[in-house]
């Protein structure tokens, strides 16, 4: 038995998506917990401290990896939700073509956020 492959899934197959979803989850969690920790520990945060944090090379790399992981995570999660609920059984015969349109929109937003995000992180 071969694994099921879908052209609309991020990876070549579900197992690949499953692994990416979990690895990305750990990276995103680390990034946001770090930011929450940083904000809680710096109640009187200044602009200089804030820029110093985001313009440091390790933070630029951390932000870049986290953003790309986040977008992969978003794509896998949204794809899963859409393929579960935008189905002919739940939404009628146009469901599959409607889902494709929604997926294209989501993918376009993901690409735009990647470009905007990377330009924020690397223009500092």
């Amino acid at each position, binding site marked *: 038995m071969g694994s099921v492959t879908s052209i609309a899934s991020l990876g070549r197959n579900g197992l690949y998506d499953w692994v990416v979803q*979990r690895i990305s989850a750990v990276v995103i969690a680390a990034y946001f917990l770090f930011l929450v920790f940083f904000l809680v520990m710096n109640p009187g945060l200044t*602009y200089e401290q*804030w820029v110093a944090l*985001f313009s440091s090379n390790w933070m630029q790399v951390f932000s870049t990896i986290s953003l790309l992981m986040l977008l992969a995570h*978003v794509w896998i*999660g*949204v794809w899963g*939700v859409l393929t579960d609920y935008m189905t002919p059984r739940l939404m009628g015969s146009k469901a599959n073509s409607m889902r494709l349109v929604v997926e294209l929109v989501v993918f376009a937003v993901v690409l735009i*956020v990647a470009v905007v995000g990377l330009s924020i992180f690397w223009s*500092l």
Partner: protein
Amino acid sequence: MKISSVNGRPVNLDLNTIDLPITAYASITHRITGLVLCAAVLVLLWFLDKSLTSEADFTEVQKILSSMPIKALMFLFLAPFWYHLIAGIRHLIMDMGVGESLEGGRLGAKIVFIVSAVLIVFTGVWLWGA
């Protein structure tokens, strides 16, 4: 209710008529919070961009974030964040084979709701000051 074409038994997949177990609520909440966080990321990225532009913009972002409606909005982002995080950690624990039984699943779902509720309360205290 539909009748199965395979064995003639009734088939019910209408979630509205099923009394969902707590594990189902844990799962659907994980999905809904995930979608909310997608929207949150767009708003947060905008705030991040502005806050890094200049000192004046930074001060303005601080002012916006301390206003009541935006504080409420941030709470509406942070609450799903904690739930999604804790529910995700539960998944990773279950991937390791812990809590996969029926009872383990129910207990895990309960723990996720309780732990995230505690974190959400702490977040409210942090945002509005105790």
